[in-house]
């Protein structure tokens, strides 16, 4: 079982949770398991075929897009970080 850290803009999709659990031997399996457990969150991250272009998924600190893609293995107890871009800064 791995821990998936939910970014603030996606927490409403996870019932306000900061972290959820998901399991899978590869990134694809893990995202599919996430979509089963927390459908609203899974849908925002993974369209069933690809990771959505505006979200980055890091497994143990490495971006899955540049380190093996959806077929890359995921160890047990991995830390998954979901990261969409944040605009905020100047703030009016």
């Amino acid at each position, binding site marked *: 079982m791995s821990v998936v850290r939910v970014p603030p*803009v996606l927490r409403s999709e996870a019932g306000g949770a900061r972290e959820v659990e998901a399991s899978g031997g590869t990134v694809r399996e893990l995202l599919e398991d996430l979509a089963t457990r927390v459908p609203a969150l899974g849908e925002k991250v993974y369209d069933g075929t690809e990771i959505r272009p505006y979200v980055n998924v890091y497994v143990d600190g490495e971006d899955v897009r540049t380190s093996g893609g959806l077929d890359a293995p995921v160890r047990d107890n991995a830390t998954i970080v979901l990261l*969409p871009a944040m605009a905020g800064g*100047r703030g*009016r």
Partner: protein
Amino acid sequence: MATYRELLKQVKDRIEEVDARQARELDGAAWVDVREQDEWDEGHIPGAAHVPRGNLESRIENVVPDRSTPVVIYCASGNRSAFAVESLRALGYESAVSLVGGYTDWKRNGFDITIPRKLSPERRARYSRHLLIPEIGEEGQLKLLDSKILLIGAGGLGSPASLYLAAAGVGTIGIIDADIVDESNLQRQIAHSLNTLGTPKVDSARRTIEALNPDVEVTTYRERLTSDNIDRILDDGWDIIVDGADNFPTRYLVNDASVWRGIPVVHGSIYRFEGQVTVFKPGDGPCYRCLYPSPPPPELAPSCAEGGVLGVLPGIVGTLQTNEALKLAAGIGDPLVGRLLLFDALATDFTEVHIKRNPECPVCGEHPSITEYIDYVEFCTR
């Protein structure tokens, strides 16, 4: 009991002296100037290290760690250096020699000299805590005073950045912001105050900076950054950009322009309790488009004005950005290039993820498809 003259003669008989021509032929020699600070400040031999005679024995190992290195010691005329060489030989520096005639003869023979730039006594006092740090010192402080750093936004992130950059003695600070100071800003935007409510943020920030450090020249741009004005603004010659923008079109615009011009961008973004910091250094790591090829849909990209932000969070993220900007300006340390630092204020947790350059990146990749400004608002809302 020997007189000074007799002692000097005895020492000179025991050590080796070389003239300027011989000294210049010593391959790989370390040159050490043992005169006092005021003498050094008026000019010295290029490449020499300055270790005043009184500190020679205690500091020489830091300056010349290898005792077999030939060392040319000089003073003004060759007398203090003779005593210095005797002392170095006692410490095991067998190849230490004294420059006969010293700096005076060197200069008279027309050899090259360097007249160091130096800080005024007022600046030495103001920046004394920087001068005490070996990694910064007078040289690093002069680099900071020479540097030009542009802030995108004088809000949550730009406020702490403007204050600490100014306090550190960054010589020129540029600020772009079109807004005026509003009461709701004061929860976090510490460059502004009740005294400047209703005035342009750029003018308010200028007042704060000038009250803190008159060394800093402030250039203000009271406008919103767009494709139409960015080239005019960047033509003012900025070394580093600190990006504290509040919207995606500006983020992508700043990215594209900085990649094309080779200007490093210190990126910071915040939302509620969480922040992201990284350095996009063109040619040396990924750019913003490598990290985020496309912006999120609007429902996933609320601004702080819509979703809120803990007041201290931009203080933390903005000072982390400032730390990176100062390191880049002074040329020290390991910048946050290729690393994205995530801060969670509720958990007090820092996480670092690795970010890589995308060879397919449309702007900084091997075959760029975007080579001029696009319609950034359209790109971010489609």
